[in-house]
């Protein structure tokens, strides 16, 4: 039987959502008012303040999916699988933001929406693979859903180092290797990073709460289904 959701969970979630809203508003303000406009690229450069944090959150989210998957296989506790699945869903959201903001930036920087360079290609592959994770997960109805998803969460993680190292491994990469910023630009990027991080934590807590409620409902259904049989046996 799963314990009911503790009250602090909802409280922590609300506090994190409030903090995320404040930080996101501050980050938006810093991007539009505080950070200077870059001389060569102009206003398009400001996409970096969304693109880089969302890419970082993508890697963090899929990393959590990997960790949750290992923990589930080791302990068989549903909460780890819930963490892996919830984190993977959020990772997909962030990855989609990366896939949208990247071409917007590339159009200005490289004069093309898309080019088959290593970082872009490997990231697109990563996106497709984790989309596949959700397709597979939703197509399994049996009790093996959690184990199969966890195995997939481990296998797919192999692609993360490939994405990370792609610009070192393959020649001819156009993608910037490091984001080096100073002054107001650096402060704005760090603020954006913090805002996205808190947003991720708040969304993850809410998504896990939904999983918790679903698990409780499932337990209630199972208990309800068992009760008449027990009653008949007793009579």
């Amino acid at each position, binding site marked *: 039987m799963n314990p009911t959701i503790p009250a602090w969970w909802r409280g922590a979630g609300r506090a994190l959502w409030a903090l995320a809203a404040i930080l996101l508003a501050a980050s938006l303000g810093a991007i539009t008012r505080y950070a200077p406009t870059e001389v060569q690229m102009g206003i398009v450069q400001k996409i970096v303040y969304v693109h880089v944090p969302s890419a970082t959150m993508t890697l963090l989210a899929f990393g959590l999916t990997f960790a949750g998957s290992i923990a589930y*296989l080791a302990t068989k506790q549903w909460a780890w699988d819930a963490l892996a699945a919830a984190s993977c869903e959020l990772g997909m959201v962030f990855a989609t933001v990366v896939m949208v903001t990247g071409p917007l930036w590339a159009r200005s920087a490289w004069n093309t929406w898309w080019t088959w360079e290593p970082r872009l*290609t*490997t990231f697109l*592959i*990563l996106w*497709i*693979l984790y*989309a*596949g994770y959700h*397709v*597979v997960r939703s*197509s*399994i109805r*049996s009790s*093996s859903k959690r*184990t*199969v998803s966890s*195995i*997939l969460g*481990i*296998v*797919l993680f*192999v*692609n993360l180092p*490939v994405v990370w190292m792609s610009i070192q*491994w393959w020649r001819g990469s156009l993608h910037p290797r490091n984001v080096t910023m100073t002054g107001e630009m650096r402060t704005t990027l760090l603020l954006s990073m913090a805002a996205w991080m808190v947003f991720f934590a708040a969304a993850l807590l809410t998504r896990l709460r939904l999983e918790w409620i679903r698990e409780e409902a499932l337990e209630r259904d199972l208990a309800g289904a068992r009760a008449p049989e027990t009653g008949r046996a007793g009579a």
Partner: protein
Amino acid sequence: MTVLAVTMKDLRLHARDARFVATLLLFSASLVLILSVAFGPIFRDPAREASATLWAALFFAGVLGLTRSLDLEGESGGGDALRLTGADPYSLYLGKTLANFLLLAGVFVFVLPIASIFFDVGDLRVLPGVLGVAALGLIGYAAWGTLFAALARGLKARELLLSVLLFPSLVPLWIGAVKLTHALWADGTVDLVRDWIKVMAVADVLGLALAAFLYELIQEATE
């Protein structure tokens, strides 16, 4: 011993199903034909086009082969029987991987001369190199393919899922195979793209190593 027994069992099942093997070969030959017509009649870079065609044909034929071997086990209950023998799961995996590798190698041997003739590429001096690249590529394909095929067992639309998950996972292997084959056919040497041999070898070892940890769990989950 278990590995060879499983390999022989799978190959025997394929041999009994001659219609499927013939379909697989015809399908891969048709793919090469269609793509050579699409790229031709005058090829801009025949070595590049031929290597891409060859590996595309192998990929699609391979997906058919992997799903077929799963279906055969499902229909006859062979998978359950194998588990009941109490054999080491990794030996079962290696046996199936070897069988899939040999099936794919058969398709490769069949398709290679067809691609060479249609695109007018290749010569016997680079044949050992091409066979080496094929071995690296097909070991990885069989290793990852058998792992994913086992995972997709029992799922709805598993052919589709196998393509969606397997193809992106194999991209490093695929790019390496195409680049190395192209280099051999175009320049007669792989000196400029030698790094891809390492990438392919790492992909092969990674597939086999992951299966060592996960295959037993996959078996339990998809029972």
